[in-house]
């Protein structure tokens, strides 16, 4: 395996985090769209749907979640993709011009925690689904406490082996696993066809007396869920040659599958009070359908986990020292915490999933606002790619000791704004949340703070590589 950076091969660049040349960026629209869909479509869709179905009925829930998801996808796309697609770099590299030659560690930590959390969840789900599947087909018997940990270890091993080939591993698996999106549509058809009357008359279990609050919360859940794609998207779109190739696959391949598959969760929680189709398909369709659902859930989770571990490993490459270790070792370092969470504290992690997803929006909404205003307004689309890799004292993106106070201030203000509008732990809200959501004003406030701080204090001092006007 030629995974050591510096060897000059396309695969070395693929696994190094360095910019990819156009000749190495060979993914077309279909290939990119399928890879993105595989990354987006996983078990978390059912949980996202469950949250929306707790506040809204089926029709309004689907409308709110779809609208919010596509808005969230647009935010992430405008924030990270332009730099990634121009220079063939990942999401972390794309934020160095805003956060500085050391400050980028903040988004990197956010990315690492986010992907670690999501993939721990997915691999635990994968292990549970596979264990249930083996029991359902009679391959193993009930009762062993070692089954889930053993399957988790097996899943981690499979991810490791597939990713030894770099992004080509994702592409190969994506071609196979994309079919689970169609199986998901079939599962939704089963439920809506057999339980439609119950579905449209079902009362959401946790709805507020204020219909507007419920509707806005459905939109907010969509936006915040799709903000989770910021860490993933760069590592995928860097394989495409230009923005034209990427725009539609991003919106349809990565944005649309989440609300589509989340309908399964909305319908499940409204009709059967259970969002996981692995459980309700046995109730609705019998054991045969249950086995199909379990295969679906296992495949979906594995595909997304592969994409996530790859994105996380590429992000870690930016850390000094990590850039010199071999690809297999880096993969092991990335997988180890995921495996430990899956093996040691799976139930504790499951119990706090709601807090986890809400806290993601607290971090990524300000980040998107900062990147959008910096790229389109302050820099007018001019990024110095050499400066991104220059860590010297005189580097344009050095700012103060490697940190950009404008970005830190904007992140801080954004964090306070989000928590003021919507408490991510209790979902208690304040005006004007019911009219604006929490993520959108947070991104806007962060963008404004970043713009003011940059124009008044950073750019006039000749820092950040901004052109003087």
């Amino acid at each position, binding site marked *: 395996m030629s995974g050591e*950076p*510096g*060897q*000059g091969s396309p695969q*070395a*660049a693929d696994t190094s985090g*360095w*910019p*990819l*040349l*156009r000749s190495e*960026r060979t993914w077309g629209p279909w290939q990119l769209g399928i890879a993105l869909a595989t990354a987006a479509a996983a078990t978390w869709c059912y949980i996202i749907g469950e949250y929306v179905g707790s506040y809204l009925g089926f*029709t*309004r829930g*689907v*409308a*709110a979640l*779809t*609208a*919010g998801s*596509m*808005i969230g*996808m*647009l935010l992430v*796309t*405008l924030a990270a993709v*332009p730099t990634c*697609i*121009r*220079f*063939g770099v990942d999401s972390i590299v794309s934020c160095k011009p805003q956060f500085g030659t050391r400050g980028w560690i903040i988004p990197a930590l956010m990315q690492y925690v986010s992907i670690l959390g999501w993939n721990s969840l997915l691999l635990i789900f994968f292990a549970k689904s596979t264990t249930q599947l083996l029991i359902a087909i009679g391959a193993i018997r009930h009762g062993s406490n070692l089954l889930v940990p053993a399957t988790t270890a097996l899943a981690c091993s499979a991810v490791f082996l597939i990713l030894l080939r770099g992004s080509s591993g994702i592409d190969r698996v994506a071609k196979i696993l994309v079919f689970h999106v169609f199986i998901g549509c079939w599962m939704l058809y089963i439920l809506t066809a057999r339980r439609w009357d119950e579905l449209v008359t079902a009362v959401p279990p946790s709805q507020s007396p204020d219909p507007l609050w419920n*509707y806005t919360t459905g*939109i907010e859940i969509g936006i915040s869920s799709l903000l989770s794609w910021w860490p993933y998207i760069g590592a995928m779109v860097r394989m*495409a*040659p*230009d*923005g*034209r190739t*990427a*725009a*539609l696959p991003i*919106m*349809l391949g990565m*944005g649309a599958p989440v609300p589509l598959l989340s309908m399964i969760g909305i319908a499940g929680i409204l009709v059967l009070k259970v969002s996981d189709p692995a459980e309700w398909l046995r109730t609705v369709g019998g054991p045969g359908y249950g086995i199909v659902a379990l295969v679906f859930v296992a495949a979906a989770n594995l595909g997304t986990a592969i994409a996530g571990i790859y994105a996380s490993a590429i992000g870690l490459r930016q850390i000094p020292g990590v850039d010199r270790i071999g690809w297999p070792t880096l993969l092991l370092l990335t997988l180890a915490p995921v495996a430990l969470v899956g093996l040691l504290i799976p139930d504790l992690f499951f119990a706090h999933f709601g807090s986890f997803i809400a806290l993601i929006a607290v971090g990524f909404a300000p980040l998107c606002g900062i990147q959008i205003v910096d790229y389109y307004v302050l820099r007018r*689309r001019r990024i110095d*790619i*050499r400066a991104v*890799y*220059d*860590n*010297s004292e*005189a*580097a344009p993106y050095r700012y103060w000791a490697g940190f950009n106070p404008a970005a830190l201030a904007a992140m801080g203000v954004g964090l306070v704004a989000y928590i003021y509008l919507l408490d991510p732990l209790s979902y208690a809200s304040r005006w004007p949340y019911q009219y604006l959501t929490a993520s959108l004003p947070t991104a806007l406030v962060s963008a404004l703070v970043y713009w003011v701080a940059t124009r008044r204090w950073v750019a006039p001092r000749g820092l950040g590589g901004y052109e003087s006007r």
Partner: protein
Amino acid sequence: MQELPDELERRLQALSDESAQGADFDPASWFWLLLLGLAGPIALIIAGWRA
């Protein structure tokens, strides 16, 4: 200026030519982005609220 690894230097050199970079979103891309990420969701929000 910091000394960079040879391979990274080669890549940055190649990307210093703007024609070697990936093209940003073109007008057709912006159309799809704004249709699917802004106009479509706004229409959906209105339609869903009226439903």
